[in-house]
């Protein structure tokens, strides 16, 4: 067993020597920088899109907020242009009304 352990250790040592770091091709660094630039561009685009989205969402929120809290203005509608009393007055002009005393009316009845 101990013998096998030693042999295995030797094998690992030999493996390290049999497996040196491979020669680095001339394309390694340019290839790496190409990949970095590619991912950088993608990240940059994503950042721009996400910023645009956030800005749009913020603007929408502010608009909704402003609309909710803005004072309600009653628009002049032809239907409700007069108050109830004014409408009554128009239908029954004062000139046409005969003035009668309340108690006298009761007496007549």
């Amino acid at each position: 067993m101990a013998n096998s352990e030693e042999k295995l250790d030797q094998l690992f040592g030999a493996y390290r020597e049999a497996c040196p770091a491979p020669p680095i091709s001339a394309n390694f660094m340019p290839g790496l920088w190409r990949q970095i630039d590619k991912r950088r561009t993608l990240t940059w685009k994503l950042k721009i899109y996400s910023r645009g989205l956030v800005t749009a969402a913020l603007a929408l929120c502010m608009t909704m907020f402003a609309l909710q809290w803005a004072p309600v203005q009653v628009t002049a509608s032809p239907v409700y242009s007069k108050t109830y009393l004014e409408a009554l007055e128009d239908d029954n002009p004062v000139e046409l009304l005969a003035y009668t005393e309340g108690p006298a009316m009761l007496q007549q009845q």
Partner: protein
Amino acid sequence: MLVEFDLIERARGGDDAAFNQIVMAYRKRVLGIVARNIGRPEDVEDVGQEVFLRLYFSLDQLRSPEVFEPWLYRLTVNAAYDYLRKQKRRPESRMADLSEQQLLVADALAGKKSQAEHQNATNIREFTEALLGEVSEEDRILLTLKEVEGLSLKELEEIYGAKENALKVRLFRARQRVLKAYEDTMKPPADGNKT
């Protein structure tokens, strides 16, 4: 450390020239680890580029330049592991596929290793990779870092962020499996020609 802390700080700050120097300093070591872990020479550079790509985009997460090397080793280990997982296969050569000649080389290695090493580098590589193929990808990487790369338990602790005892147990089990495979290979074949 192969580079100055200052260089790492500069690279963290977005200095591409500094990053370039770091890659130049560490690429041989990283490619060596990758080569000994993935077992496919044609893909070593791709995996190595992936390691440095990850390094470039994660440098800002580095706590301090002091932990740069374990950090880089961790990225290397992860990239190698991801590669092995993507491949979904162990190294092509297995114990059963080993030729008689390779077994003889392995045997000769113990006695006359210096001669065998240089003459049969390919056979040694294939034989060891077949042995390492007996354990999982994670254990293969861990065992390679310890036994082949010669990293200490302390360094492995930093790389894996695991307790030393847990690593010891895992290493022991993995080594035992590899050792068993080794002993099985070294056993003389059963004589089936008995009359």
